[in-house]
């Protein structure tokens, strides 16, 4: 299958997660991604985590984020390496970076400089908090962006205090938005500068609660009982059963009261009060559901078309036929022959999943090949 971005070349100066997750998507969609790495330590995510998380001597995070890319090891202070980068930049379709404000200018690799030699270049930049304002020099780190953005007030119960989302959501979202901006620019065919900050991305993620806040100025209220979403009425939540947990999405309390023959629930017959009274309603449900197994309840709820699901952990998930049917996992192999399992691109084209068997590169693995190729290559403008 021809991948949609075949023929597009991306020069990737980013490290950590936000930028590299964007270029991972571009590579899975068919672009060739050249990861430009510092000549000594490379992308810091190769090494910064606990060694327990390593795969083949490199962090599993790095292995997940940087598969299907080439690694070019350079010292930008070395004239020969700098000349190579200049040639590559002139011949690339996309450049992305996540350096602090000013760094690319000092290197002569800022957008205004590059567009004169490559007018159709799409130039993507990721920052923590944008280029202006008092936070522009703050570290653009995921937990801090979550903490500052109000996001930690949305999950868990009110009495839990601030609860961050347990993965690097701000990084992931910023990278995702960058992909959209870069691709839109490629659709237009015009040279474009695309900027995304982690803070703007995580505010966009909260567009629903923020828009409500702009209207009424009220703080988010998560409730105490089986909390799942601060804005949704009972029964929405996860409930403990005899052998696990059961998820109930939106649904009728009256219907549940009937199905379960649950007398105390029948007192809550007015749908307009299921939001306001969500805690007492969920408390009754929680006590009732704790008396039987998850399978027992699913056996009653599913035939009645009540929106429900078992709450699975990763082990239960990967053993389930529901995920096997999606073929969401894939094996990748590196040049040393080391193989590991990871996920594939979540987007399917013409009914085909986009898979790739290439693992993450060793630091500088493709340097020689890229250097040789670059010597032969004409500048970008001459190809078209």
């Amino acid at each position, binding site marked *: 299958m021809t991948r949609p971005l075949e*023929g*597009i070349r991306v020069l990737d100066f980013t490290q950590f997660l936000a930028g590299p997750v964007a270029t991972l998507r571009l590579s899975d969609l068919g672009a060739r991604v050249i990861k430009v790495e510092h000549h000594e330590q490379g992308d810091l995510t190769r090494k910064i*985590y*606990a*060694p*327990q998380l390593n795969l083949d001597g490199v962090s599993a*995070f790095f292995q*997940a*984020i940087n598969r299907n890319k080439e690694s070019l090891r350079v010292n930008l202070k070395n004239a020969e390496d700098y000349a190579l980068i200049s040639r590559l930049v002139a011949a690339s379709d996309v450049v992305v970076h996540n350096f602090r404000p000013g760094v690319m200018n000092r290197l002569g690799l800022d957008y205004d400089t590059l567009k004169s030699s490559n007018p159709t270049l799409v130039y993507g930049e990721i920052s923590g908090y944008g280029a202006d304002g*008092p936070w522009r020099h703050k*570290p653009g*780190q995921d*937990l*801090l962006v979550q*903490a500052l953005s*109000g996001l930690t007030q*949305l999950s*868990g119960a009110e009495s839990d*205090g601030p*609860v*961050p*989302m*347990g*993965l690097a*959501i701000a990084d992931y979202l910023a990278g995702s*938005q960058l992909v*959209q901006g870069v*691709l*839109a620019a490629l*659709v237009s*065919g015009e040279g474009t500068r695309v900027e995304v900050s982690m803070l703007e991305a995580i505010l*966009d993620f909260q*567009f*629903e609660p*923020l*828009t409500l806040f702009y*209207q009424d100025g009220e703080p988010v209220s*998560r409730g105490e009982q089986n909390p*799942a*979403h601060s*804005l949704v009425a009972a029964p929405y939540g*996860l409930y403990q059963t005899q052998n696990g947990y059961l*998820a109930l*999405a939106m649904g009728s309390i009256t219907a549940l009261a009937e199905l379960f023959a649950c007398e105390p629930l029948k007192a809550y017959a007015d749908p307009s009060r299921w939001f306001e009274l969500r805690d007492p309603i969920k408390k009754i449900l929680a006590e009732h559901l704790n008396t039987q197994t998850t399978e027992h309840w699913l056996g009653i709820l599913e035939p009645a078309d009540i*929106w*429900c699901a*078992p709450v*699975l952990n990763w082990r239960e*998930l*990967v053993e*389930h036929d*529901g*995920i096997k049917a999606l073929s969401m996992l894939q094996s990748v192999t590196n040049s040393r022959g080391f193989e*590991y*399992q990871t*996920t594939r*691109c*979540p987007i*399917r*084209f013409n009914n085909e999943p986009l898979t790739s068997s290439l693992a993450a590169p060793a630091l500088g693995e493709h340097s020689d090949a890229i250097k040789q190729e670059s010597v032969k290559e004409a500048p970008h403008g001459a190809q078209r």
Partner: protein
Amino acid sequence: MKLPLEGLTVLEFSQYLAGPYAGLRLADLGARVIKVERPGAGDACRKSATKNLWADGDSVLFHTINRNKESFTANLKDPDDLERVRRLVAQADVMTHNFRPGIMDRLGLDYDSVYELNPSIVYGEVSGYGESGPWRDRPGQDLLAQSVSGLTWLSNTADKPPTPFGIAVADMLCGTHLAQGILAALVQRRRSGQGSKVSVSLLESILDLQFEGLTVFLNQGQQLPQRSAVAGAHVYLGAPYGIYPTADGHIALSMGSLETLCRALGCTGLETFDTPQAQFDHRDHIKAHLSEHLRTQTTRHWLSVLEPEGYWCSDVLDHQRLTEEEAYQVLEMEQTVSRGDTVSLRTTRCPIRINGEKLFSSRAAPVLGDSTESITKEFSL
């Protein structure tokens, strides 16, 4: 300013959040997005209000997701309306839908049929769990997708029940991936002239979000990660990573040198935990110790000793305090959208900047069917 997607027409048969969120992003990037809605009712989101907030008969939620779009009504069960829709599809660049499997086939609006009408169209499809397998017909709902995906075991502390993300994260990511796929297909179409079908599902999207953790899990004997007992923030990160109570609020501590941190805080007793592995293995002990110490002073005090040391930390804000910050205000993340004299509401803007410009749009979500007549004329339907 000329926007990158100007000149492209998107037909949005999608309802609720995932598909319309993709449509919103395409609209903000310059596309013309036409919602194709049922006469009388329209997108079911119009009537599903959160906190009972409404604007001119439509929920504020609907307004949030559907600003900057037009509305065309058609009854897809009526042969004449369906024929008009087919003529519209023949002239569009993109269409999206999130109907249950089989419905578009029965209407003759499945990809193969649409391809006959318009081979260059990009056809986007959203489902809950993909087009095959035992979960195919399950309701494609956000909390349920979160629940089966394992995501609920990543947030909060170990003593707490599984904790979902308090936002419709599967919907939002699925919409994001849909927009990515559609845009990639449009890039390809520039060169080949051919369209394609792009499919995404809530489950694949919410698994992609967990790709880092899943990669650790899959290659380490499928050992389930444990949430931290104290200041839970990330199952695979060691101390001090987390959010801690202080004398008057909270403080977020990112990764960094524990030695630097303790020196700046004046906190002793953790000297032996001097490797990343020890800081991971003994994170609960370290975090409990830090937590006791951090309660003794205000957030401002701790920030004032940590920031000069370059230690990565921050205050923990709610929406009220966030929106009072100058750093928030300079972003100009808010905009007012309006609809005649009947709607004027504040919402967020597109988070992407193009050529140094923020993208604003003042057009509120459409009245149901407000462009039916003009679109009928314009496209000769």
